[in-house]
């Protein structure tokens, strides 16, 4: 993989810095996606490089003011050229199609990652994210803490308009939509802090609808969960009603308890 990266100058330029999350993925999903992008990029260069070359070369070679090739004004068909120009793109597309078919199935965001996952229910609100940890009975706003090397299984919904849940460092985004739930499975292999964001414009507070993602060791994860569950602020109906109100730059919050089944209720349109 790394060798592959080095062959792409722009990738080299950017992969050094932490700020290019797509080129420096922290999990297998993002890595496979980057891999796929680079492979298909290379495949397409097989056509694009000659085309660009010919686009510069032909007009120069056959320039009317200084022509270097013969002039055949009636020459307008050649079965062999036509054959090649249909065939070569067709072969490349066939190759890409095969790759795409397999990758699309393998990287289907709904498809669980093997292992015992952490379950998280994410609700998109105007303009903040609510994360419910149903197994721990805790919830947070705009702060997502996950253990490394443990699959994370998201259920997503929206209490308002359509949004897209995306953590660029981990890969794959999926829409969150009102009245239904979508699924997303991710895995962090590296400890670190990332940014998560809404990638689907959702109105006035869209630009501020990002959140902090912390991938931490299993120990720290357990400690954090423990801490939150002792903090004493519960997400009850009244509090939910309050956070559901549209608001920009809502502060990060943590709740020691959640009314069970809240996510299901939101999906049903509460």
């Amino acid at each position: 993989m790394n060798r592959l990266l080095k062959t792409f100058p722009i990738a080299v330029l950017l992969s050094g810095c932490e700020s290019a999350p797509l080129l420096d993925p922290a999990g297998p999903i993002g890595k496979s996606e980057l891999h796929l992008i680079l492979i298909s990029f290379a495949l397409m260069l097989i056509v694009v490089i000659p085309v660009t070359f010919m686009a510069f070369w032909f007009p120069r070679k056959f320039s009317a003011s200084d022509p270097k090739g013969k002039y055949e004004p009636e020459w307008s068909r050649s079965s062999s050229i036509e054959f090649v120009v249909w065939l070569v793109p067709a072969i490349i597309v066939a190759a890409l199609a095969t790759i795409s078919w397999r990758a699309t199935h393998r990287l289907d965001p709904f498809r669980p990652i093997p292992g015992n996952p952490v379950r998280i229910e994410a609700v998109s609100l105007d303009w903040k994210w609510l994360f419910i940890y149903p197994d721990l009975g805790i919830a947070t706003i705009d702060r997502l803490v996950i253990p490394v090397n443990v699959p994370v299984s998201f259920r997503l919904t929206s209490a308002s308009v359509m949004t897209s849940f995306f953590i660029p460092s981990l890969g794959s985004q999926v829409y969150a939509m009102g009245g239904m739930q979508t699924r997303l499975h991710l895995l962090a292999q590296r400890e670190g802090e990332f940014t998560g964001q809404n990638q689907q414009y959702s109105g006035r507070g869209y630009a501020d609808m990002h959140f902090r993602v912390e991938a931490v060791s299993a120990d720290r994860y357990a400690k954090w969960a423990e801490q939150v569950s002792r903090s004493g602020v519960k997400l009850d109906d009244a509090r939910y009603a309050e956070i559901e109100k549209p608001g920009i730059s809502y502060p990060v919050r943590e709740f020691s308890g959640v009314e069970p089944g809240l996510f299901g209720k939101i999906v049903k349109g509460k």
Partner: protein
Amino acid sequence: MGKLTFSAIPIDNPIIMSAVVCAILIAIWIGHEITKRKRWSWLWNEWLTSLDHKKIGIMYVVLAIVMLVRGFFDAILMRLQQAMAEGSSHGFLPPGHFDQIFSAHGTIMILFAAMPFLVGLMNIAIPLQIGARDVAFPFLNSVSLWLTASAAMLVMVSLGVGDFSKAGWSGYAPLSELGFSPDVGVDYWTWALQIAGIGSLLSGINFLVTILRMRAPGMTLMRMPIFVWATFFTNMLMLAAFPVLTAALAMLSLDRYLGMHFFTADHGGNPMLYVNLFWIWGHPEVYIVILPAFGIFSEVVATFSSKRIFGYESLVYATGAITVLSFAVWLHHFFTMGAGADVNAAFGIATMLIAIPTGVKIFNWLFTMYRGRVRFASPMYWTLGFLTTFAIGGMTGVLLSLPPADFVLHNSLFLVAHFHNMLIPGALFGYFAGFSYWFPKATGFMLDEKWGKRAFWCWICGFYLAFMPLYVLGFLGMPRRMEHYANPAWQPWLILAAFGTLLIFFGILFQGIQIATSLGPKRRAADPDPWDGRTLEWATSSPPPSYNFAVLPEVKDRDAFLEMKRAGIHSPTRYEDIEIPKGSAKGAFIGASSFACGFGLVWHIWWLAAMAALLILLIVISRSMEEETMTILPSGEVKRIEEAGHVL
């Protein structure tokens, strides 16, 4: 007055108000100049009420240029905003205004710059290229023009009266529903699209019939110039796609006006339905704007290589294949909505398939130059700029067609870079090529080459500088439509992009200078055939007489005019009377009434909307009762015009 009050005028907002004041001042100045030169009746009789396809075409192009400039100013504002709005700085635009700007920019560029530009060029060239005297339905043509213009007007008025939509050019539900967008912005957007959509549908019908029924004797389908083929397929797309948009927007309006629930997230509505319908129109729409440009490149590359187009049949079949496929790929705009892997993969592969015929076209253009004699006039500059740049956009497009790649690049600036990479070199450069190619034919004057080439260099360098950084920003994780952002790593690239936009500004400025010098006092009259043309439009004088061809040409070859030149052109021995359509003001009146109707609907001024709708009906009825819609140009007059050589 419905919901309309004085508070709808944003007097407290200096940026908007200065734009409004500028627009009004320009309008007053133009009005003043026309009055000073006593040109009002000329403008009205010779232009606004004209049913001559060439004049309608020129008016379409003028509309397109005006709207392109407006859309470009929106782009400058966005680029400046994003170059500044890092960290605690939220830029210079008032809250919520950025959202209106990108919505207006997208809507305007696609529907009111690209569409009128291509319909205008079609109007100018198609009847001439097929050796016809006019389009099939000249009055309908004028109606289409005025519907498009009045819809554009509606968008312009939203600048000063109320707000424009803040829901993006795609107006996704449920954001565009009343609950989330309670102001009139979305209504401006829907009614503008509805009116323009009907206009496009009508031109689609008009040109299909024109091409199928009005070709000169001997012009079989397989002898039609490639631009005619491209137009033919484009109009099929218009005919099939626009009704879907009309239906989707009608349902959205029912939700907004009558409290129905087609696309709401609750009460049984389904926003995903809206998204599907929008792109069932939206994807063919991008081919509607790009296929005519492909047609223009084909004409230009053959003419300026002094050589037959390479692989004519291939080009035709490729265009047909693109037309069909373009209806089978819409889902690629929302791979991330959660469809299963089978569905995503199938639509992804269908999308990739389009790359094959598109690639074939590029090779055909390249091999047209091969063994030719390439002349570097400005239409050819735009074409070569396209050929060297478009492949990058195609490549990133195929990349986005891989669902897993789209999972990380969707809605990022990579996507914005990709579609501008298609739309600017692909569509806009094509129109510019067509503009400079047919300008002498349409106006009778040569277009200044020096400023044209300067404009080209600014555009192409500006394009790379403005959009290549956006590809990078996609990999840095920057989403589209960001009013401000917290990530400092994005800013340098956005500043670069702003400089690119500045270069494009000079490109547009130089094009303005180019047009001004070409029509100004030092203008140079154009020959009938300035480029050594191959197709029939060059067989007429520049500009052509109102009836185009005194005697309908006999077509014996694909390059019909070239063949005529070789065989020797004889002036006809006898002329006949020619029927030409009389001018009619009714198209303009229908347009004005549509504007009033749209404005009434936007502001819930029901009496205005109802009266305007009734008026439209009455005008249509009165037009269909008119008996003498044509006049006869006697053969003596035709002879006089033909022998004088130049006419207007």
